[in-house]
């Protein structure tokens, strides 16, 4: 009875998938256009993997005798995956051979497609930048693309849109090591202990607030031209940005970094300069109101000259009075 119900549900489910509208607008500019039918097929294929590799799979294992303890560490979140850059790929595009059946083939892991297999062009650029980076110099054998990029989760900044989400995603990567002794030790050269992230940046006021509203890579990577992807060259302490006004001034560098994909929408809402930044962060020196500032400067000027005129009047009156008294 139960299994019949499940089958019915599966059929209804696949119709529902077929009936899905075309791709959401944010994913439209794909390299290859995928029809809804193809997409449904991909999802159905992925559902096979997710039947085990999910919370539900661990709670109600479709197969007896599996290593559930291990499976618990291999859960993939379907919702997160379908919101990621790779949302339209089959699991098996990357997890090539040996995963279709269970138990999986012993050497299945060796066949995982690498990033550069599919992204040869950007990988070549990234590789060169990464080679100059602090991580490549000392840790190159352990440090690969997947050390930072979780291909099941990450989303391009421009597609995420909301700066808060971008900061959370990208800083989770860096803080995952630099704010965790356990993770740091896995990669650090022997005997190197982790310097506390807030101590290193003690010259920056309210560091935790900055980590929530601005990315590490804002200060730790070189500037790039408008259309180019962010650089993968991570700067060490000599080259990292320490000058506050790079961000904290009317012409903030954040306009070409964290907010680059939004600057076109800048509307000077309610007359504020950089109102696009103001939507998520009030930044001293950046999110000013030019008209209000001008009025205030005028008020100061008027007061100053008003008082000056009053003072001059007193001096003149004083001399006139003196002359009168003497004359």
């Amino acid at each position: 009875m139960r299994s019949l119900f499940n089958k019915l549900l599966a059929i209804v489910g696949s119709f529902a998938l077929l009936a899905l509208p075309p791709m959401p607008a944010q994913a439209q500019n794909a390299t290859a256009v995928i029809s809804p039918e193809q997409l449904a097929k991909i999802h159905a294929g992925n559902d096979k993997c997710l039947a085990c590799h999910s919370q539900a799979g661990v709670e109600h294992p479709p197969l007896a005798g599996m290593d559930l303890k291990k499976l618990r560490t291999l859960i993939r979140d379907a919702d997160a995956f379908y919101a990621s850059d790779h949302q339209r790929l089959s699991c098996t595009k990357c997890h090539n051979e040996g995963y279709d059946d269970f138990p999986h083939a012993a050497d299945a892991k060796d066949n995982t497609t690498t990033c550069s297999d599919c992204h040869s062009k950007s990988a070549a650029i990234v590789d060169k930048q990464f080679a100059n980076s602090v991580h490549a110099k000392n840790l190159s054998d352990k440090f690969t693309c997947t050390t930072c990029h979780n291909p099941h989760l990450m989303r391009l900044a421009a597609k995420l849109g909301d700066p808060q989400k971008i900061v959370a995603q990208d800083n989770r990567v860096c803080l995952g090591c630099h704010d965790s002794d356990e993770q740091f030790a896995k990669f650090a050269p022997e005997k190197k202990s982790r310097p506390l992230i807030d101590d290193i940046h003690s010259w920056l006021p309210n560091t935790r607030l900055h980590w929530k509203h601005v990315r590490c890579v804002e200060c730790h990577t070189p500037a790039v031209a408008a259309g180019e992807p962010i650089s993968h060259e991570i700067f060490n302490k000599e080259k990292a940005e320490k000058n506050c006004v790079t961000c904290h001034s009317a012409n903030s560098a954040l306009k070409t970094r964290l907010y680059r994909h939004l600057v076109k929408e800048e509307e000077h809402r309610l007359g504020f300069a950089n109102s696009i930044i103001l939507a998520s962060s009030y930044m001293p020196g950046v999110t000013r109101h030019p008209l209000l500032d001008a009025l205030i400067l005028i008020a100061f000027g008027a007061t100053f000259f008003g008082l000056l005129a009053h003072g001059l009047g007193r001096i003149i009156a004083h001399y006139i009075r003196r002359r009168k008294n003497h004359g």
Partner: protein
Amino acid sequence: MADREYLLSPWIRIWHWTNAVLIITLGVTGMSVHFADPNLPLVEFSLAVRIHNIAGVCLIVAYSFFVIGNIVTGNWWQFVPKPPGIMQRMIEQTRWYAYGMFVGEPHPHTPSKEQNFNVLQAVTYWNIMYLLMPVILVSGLVYLYPEFAPDTLFGFDGLLPVAMLHYLSATAILLFLLSHIYLGTTGKTIGQLFKMMITGWHEH
């Protein structure tokens, strides 16, 4: 006795000059932060922030001292304009600033132990000290600990109203400061009132 009267106890004078130095410091560093510009820094940004934060906390301490001192010594009574004829004296005082002093009329008000301030001073000082100061202190404190500000407000960061309140009250206080310093020169001589604020003695 007739030509000299001791009006201001040491605690008031110490508080007054501490307050003055702190507010000028806060004004200069606050403006450096607000008008931050790589090409014309008044005070370099990170230095300005550090000084501003320290001076801000000091101002809170100084203000608490002022409030407590006023309660303990009963000096708060000075800030209350006393009837009758408040309106009348206010007009008189204004008229003197605008006209009387030019033609050599005598001061309409002479500072005394019972009534140190003229009405206009009492009203202005009361507003500045008990309305504006709390606003700038509290908004500064929230600015220092932004986790206490609302997250968002009308599609903007929730710190916006706090920062605006801080900026506008700073403007009002600095405008007051300008006038305050200038009016300090309107004693019998240019320096009379400044001298009184240093020595405590009013020379009649």
